[in-house]
Every structure is written in C-alpha cells, then in structure tokens.
C-alpha cells in the first residue's frame, strides 16, 4: 500500500466544517468475506487496524472526516449468516448486518416488539435505513443509539463470535461508554436475540429530536404488562442521558404493583429525573434532557398502556 504522503493526518476533533467530505482520503485494503469465520479471521489477523464496514453510514463519514483511518476494511454486507430475521420459538433472532429497513418491514417486529419498530421508523431517512444495520447502530455505542432502549427493555442478548467461539452477552452489559463496547478487536457481533415477552406485554418508544432526521436529544422505550390497571411488570430504558443507554431500575421498582394513576405517573417522572445523568452538548442542555426524560417516560408508559387497553 502506498503511504499517505500527501495527506497530513489531522488530529481528531478537527473542525468538521472545514473537512472535504467529497472524497475518502484514506487508503485501505478491502475484504468481502462470506462467512462469520472469515470475518473473525480477518479481524484477528489485522487487529485494531481493521474496521468492520456494515452499513457505512457512520464508518464512511468518520473516515471522510479522518476521525479514523483504518488500514483494512472488512465489509460484512455479503455475509449471509449475519443477514436475517428468524423466529426461533422463544426469541426472535436478527442478524447483526440486517438493515434497519428490513427490521422496519418485518411484521413480527411491528407486532411483538413495537418499541423496536417505532425506534427504527424514527431513524434518519429511507436511504440511510436502506444502508444502516442494527449491529452497526449498537456497535458504534452512541449513547443516543435508537435501537438500544427497545432492546434493553426486551432484555435482548447479543451473540458475539470470536476466534475461541461464541458467547451470549446481555445487552445491559454490552455498552461501556460513548463509542465503547465489550467487543474485542477480534470479535464480531453476530446476532441479536430478542426474547418474546409474556402475553399481554406492550411496548412503546418515544424520541425527542430537533428535526425528524436528527439524532435523539432523549429517547425512551418502555415494556409494560398490567392486570386490571395494576403494573405487573415494567421495564424502562433511556438513551442520550448518560454515557451509555440506561435502564431506569428505580422507576421500574417504584411502578411495579401500583395502579397507573396520574399521581403515580407524576411520581415516576420525578424518579426518572434522579436516575438520568445527562450532559450538555450541541443537541441539548443537561437541564432540558433531565426535564424531558420525566415527561417522555410518562408519555411512553401511557402509550404502552393504551395499547394494552386497546387490544
């Protein structure tokens, strides 16, 4: 490979408005493996110099902006084992390289995992959803990743494949911080297993963003099961309010066994505000995020509850 003689490497945190995003100013070797085994072998061989190309909607942008300059690109779009949606009795399995658009168009996702359907629908435009993958959304580990809160409330498990074999990691243990996951350089996220929820469970997803195309200021998913108006089981997860997507365990605990009255919902919203740890960034302020977290958790609970009542 020729050296990048003409390109002076920029430090990360360059002014992205001054970067030429017309071209890809990085040279790399390119691979199109057909099996997960080949993917893992390539990753093991090239270590941190290699990057997986799934949808490319984040990777290519970051390469254009020279935040990263991988020497090896492993395109997993043609790996069939990573590209499927399959009903497996107790869980729905989704290949990590499955495009968001395919998930959105899956009847079973829409019916059984409504919050995931709504999350995917809320993301970017149709072109991006035709490219971006669920695995890419998770592995980028953005605190604002829209598919994370729904998968957290469904308690999904992630099948990770490495040289030594495979393992299942609960999604609650997958994220370590912004851009950081438990994945090692020689491992690939292969499948997302979403357990079917007990009969009567309904879910909802709500996102607050500046415009429809933008990333979330705050997003939330809930999965709710009630009996005669009393909460039997509830799970709540939020994004963009902490270094990783989080579950609101205290709020869940408070709600369990209670009747969903206005007063109870108000109190739940107050507890949520104590559980989030938002920051101020270009999209929003910490104060706003905290305040809105309470509001949209309440809204999402009501939305899920209406679905239970409306069935």
């Amino acid at each position, binding site marked *: 490979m020729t050296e990048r003689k003409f390109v002076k490497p920029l430090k990360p945190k360059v002014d992205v408005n001054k970067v030429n995003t017309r*071209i890809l100013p990085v040279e790399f*070797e390119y691979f199109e493996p057909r099996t997960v085994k080949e993917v893992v072998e390539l990753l093991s061989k090239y270590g941190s110099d290699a990057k997986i190309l799934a949808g490319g909607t984040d990777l290519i942008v970051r390469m254009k902006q020279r935040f990263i300059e991988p020497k090896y690109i492993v395109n997993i779009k043609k790996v069939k084992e990573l590209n499927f949606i399959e009903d497996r009795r107790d869980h729905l399995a989704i290949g990590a390289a499955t495009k968001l658009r395919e998930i959105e168009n899956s009847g079973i996702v829409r019916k059984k995992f409504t919050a995931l359907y709504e999350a995917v629908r809320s993301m970017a435009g149709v072109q991006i959803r035709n490219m971006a993958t669920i695995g890419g959304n998770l592995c980028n580990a953005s605190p604002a990743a829209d598919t994370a809160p729904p998968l957290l409330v469904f308690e999904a498990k992630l099948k990770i494949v490495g040289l030594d074999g495979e393992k299942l990691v609960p999604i609650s243990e997958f994220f370590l911080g912004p851009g950081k996951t438990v994945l090692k350089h020689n491992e690939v996220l292969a499948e997302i297993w979403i357990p079917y929820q007990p009969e009567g469970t309904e879910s909802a997803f709500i996102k607050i963003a500046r415009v429809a195309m933008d990333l979330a200021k705050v997003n939330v998913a809930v999965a709710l099961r009630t009996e005669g108006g009393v909460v039997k089981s509830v799970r709540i997860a939020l994004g963009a309010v902490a270094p990783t997507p989080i579950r609101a365990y205290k709020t869940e605990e408070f709600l369990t066994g209670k009747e969903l009255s206005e007063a109870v919902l108000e109190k739940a919203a107050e507890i949520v505000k104590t559980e989030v740890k938002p920051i101020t960034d270009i999209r929003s302020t910490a104060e706003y995020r905290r305040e809105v977290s309470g509001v949209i958790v309440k809204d999402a609970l009501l939305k899920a509850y209406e679905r239970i009542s409306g069935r």
Partner: protein
Amino acid sequence: MGKVIRFRLNGRPVSIYVENNELLLNVLREKLGVMSPKYGCGIGECGACTVLLDGEPVLSCLTLAVEVDGKDVVTAEGLARDSDLDVVQRAFIEEGAIQCGYCIPGFILVAKKLLEENPEPDEDFIREYIRGNLCRCTGYVNIVRAIKRAAEELKFHVGKNK
C-alpha cells in the same frame, strides 16, 4: 489499490476499474459522466446523491464503488425512455416542483420507490418518506404535490401502458 467492477448502470452493463477508497458518487460523476446524482453534504444528511441500488434508494456518497460489483444502479438518467420523460419527472415539471434543481434527481428516485411501495400515498406518507431529502429552495409544497400528481397519473394510466 482497487479492482475492476462490473455492474448495470441504467440498464447497461458497465465494467470499470475503481480504487478501494473511491465512492460510488465520484465514479458515476467523474468517470462515467452520470451527472444527476449530486454532492450535497457528503455525510448522509441531504439525499442529493441518492441512487437506486438494486431498486432501493441509497446514498452514493457513502457507498464504496467496489461494493456495487454485480449490482444494479439506476440514476435519474435511467428513467426517461429516449425523449419520453418518466411520469414522475413530468409531474415535477408540471407542478413547478423544480427550482434550482440540485436536489431533484434524489427526490425523483425516492418518489419512484415511494410510489412503487404505495400507489395511493397521502400527504403524511409522502412527507415522511421524503424526509431524507433536503431542498434548500424549500420547495416542499410543490414537490409533495408533484408526487401526488404522479400517483394519480399512474393510476389513470394503469393498463394503458402495459
């Protein structure tokens, strides 16, 4: 470092050498002279570089050219038959939906797919579907009207064209 890729471009076979780090948009515009896909934002926000890849709208500025080996690419150039414009193209002209024109090829390709999926779209459906395309002239009202018009004309012509 690169390779020779073969793909269909607007129905015709193409065979061309591309570098690994070349983007589909640049190959189309600079090597193949296909000028309807535009460079807008370069980071996946604007939709000006939209092409249909195996029938699906995608962003050519975020697609490596090496990836389209064996695939089918359609741009706005591939819609008209000789001098006969496509129904969607005509509807855009008739509704005055084109101002500066920069975003229009992207809009038209997305509109093609939209109408294929839903031949009777309402305004909400259209606005939702085209949200990945930005028009800096803000001509959205006429664009939405043009897509509705195209839907009506397609309905009217069903059977006639076949």
